[in-house]
């Protein structure tokens, strides 16, 4: 549904987007991740046709953005960064205007607006001017504008930015539902990693304009150093003994001591990796060791891996980053 091929965007001498390709099918929710200034918003502006790319092609539902922009854009619902809206208009007026530009008139328009207002819980502020809205309502008003015409493609730039935890939860559920049940092709950008687990079926991470990861959330997690690591807590064992025995296991790559108090030691055994994938036999090997040594243990579990860890590893190690480089 969304096809972006080899997008490049220069701002003067600055390369903001560097050969980015994205393909999103109906029913997919693509999480677009990256640190601030990575080029997420710029990429979204290219895909929605707001900015022309320096190189590359965009097609929405088969309509080329350059030659058939109106048809392509009519398939998109877009929530730009910071949720812009006409400050002097009322919510009613703003949504009515959006509906009219989307070609909805009369009853269709009324129904579309009512439906969007209901979904976004805007009834209490329907006749209020936008400049008087709280950030949460402002955001949902712009959100309503994006889903009003029931578009098959949704592009949302940090859709939960500035919302309180309950609102965040609602918006995530809404996005998830629109992907799974309404079969829309969705791209959301975020730098909140929990969002990835909550809504995304696929993840693309960009750093300094380049794609540095593309895959499922689980695949991303296995990249984490701690994924597949086995954490144990034992009593009455000396630290050096524990460390040595664990390291001696063929499945274990290295061991870290996490905590030590009153003779209780918590340690983590990091698995050996083959092609970046952790050795899945590690937990069994560690358990066997504990039984064989007859050590008294209080804890034994396998780590799933942490997204923030991978995120940091991918976006910091690949390119030494200069802060504030404009």
């Amino acid at each position: 549904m969304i096809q972006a091929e080899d997008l490049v965007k220069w701002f003067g001498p600055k390369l903001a987007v560097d050969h980015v390709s994205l393909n999103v099918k109906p029913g997919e929710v693509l999480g677009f991740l990256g640190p601030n200034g990575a080029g997420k918003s710029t990429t979204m502006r290219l895909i929605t046709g707001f900015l022309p790319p320096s190189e590359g092609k965009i097609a929405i539902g088969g309509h080329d953005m350059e030659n058939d922009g109106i048809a392509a854009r009519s398939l998109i619902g877009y929530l730009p960064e910071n949720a812009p809206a006409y400050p002097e208009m009322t919510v009613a007026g703003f949504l009515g205007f959006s509906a009219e530009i989307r070609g909805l008139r009369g009853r269709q328009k009324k129904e579309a607006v009512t439906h969007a207002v209901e979904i976004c819980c805007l009834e209490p502020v329907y006749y209020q001017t936008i400049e008087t809205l709280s950030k949460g309502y402002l955001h949902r008003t712009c959100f309503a504008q994006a889903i009003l015409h029931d578009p098959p493609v949704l592009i949302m730039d940090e859709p939960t930015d500035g919302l309180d935890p309950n609102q965040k939860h609602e918006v995530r559920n809404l996005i998830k539902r629109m992907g799974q049940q309404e079969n829309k092709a969705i791209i959301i950008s975020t730098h909140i990693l929990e969002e990835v687990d909550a809504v995304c079926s696929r993840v693309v991470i960009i750093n300094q304009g380049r794609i540095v990861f593309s895959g499922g959330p689980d695949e991303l997690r296995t990249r984490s150093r701690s994924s597949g690591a086995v954490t144990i807590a034992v009593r009455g064992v000396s630290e050096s003994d524990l460390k040595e025995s664990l390291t001696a296991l063929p499945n274990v790559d290295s061991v870290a001591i996490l905590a030590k108090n009153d003779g209780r030691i918590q340690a983590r055994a990091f698995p050996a990796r083959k092609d970046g994938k952790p050795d899945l036999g590690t937990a069994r090997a560690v358990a066997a060791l504990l039984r064989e040594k007859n050590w008294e243990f209080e804890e034994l579990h396998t780590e799933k891996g942490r997204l923030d860890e991978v995120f940091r590893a991918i976006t910091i190690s690949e390119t030494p980053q200069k802060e504030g480089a404009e």
Partner: protein
Amino acid sequence: MRAVRNIWAVTKRELGSYFSSPVAYVFIIIFLMLSGFFTFMVGNFFARNEASLASFFLWHPWLYLFLVPAAGMRLWAEERRAGTIELLFTMPITVWQTIVGKFLAAWVFLGLALALTFPMVITVIYLGDPDGGAIFTGYLGSFLVAGVYLAISNMTSAMTRNQVVSFITALVLCLFLVLAGWRPVTDMLVNWAPAQLVAAVAAFSIIPHFDSLQRGVIDSRDLTYYFSVIVFALFTTGVILRSRRAS
């Protein structure tokens, strides 16, 4: 059909914006007060002792120099400031539809301000037996001058985020249109510039086209002048908006 609906949606929204802020009312009041002041105080409306609106219309190209750029400077600057330009240009609407929609809204607004000077018409009808045709063409000319200035202000508003810069640039460009054919300026040019250049500069002037309408003459050449300047300025607005987005 789609184009007309889109333009109308933009025009309606824009007009709504004008009237939801006090600026519109302040603008209309200032316009009415200044036009009255020039007509009666500076233009010696009564001393002329004739039932015509000549002294009323006479000042409009000068009055509009300040008022129209003030009305037009926000057209694109506001859109950029609020970030709504990103919404507008990612909706299924073409750039020229938005330009025309915005232009029409501001022009209708100026037309409304102009229409509110109708007590002037009642006054001259009461005082004497004015030439109705001349009054009509006088209003038409005034409205067209406002349209030309507005198209230019629309263009300068697209150039910059800064409303003051937009205002001043529009004012200078409009002033050029007024002065290009003004006697003191052409007389000054005649002394050192070739005759063709003087003629070329004078051809840009809005005043001759304004004057002939004031005399009650509707000449297709005058109308062509007004509409070509408007179309040119709006076209340039489109070029500017496109190129500014590309960078």
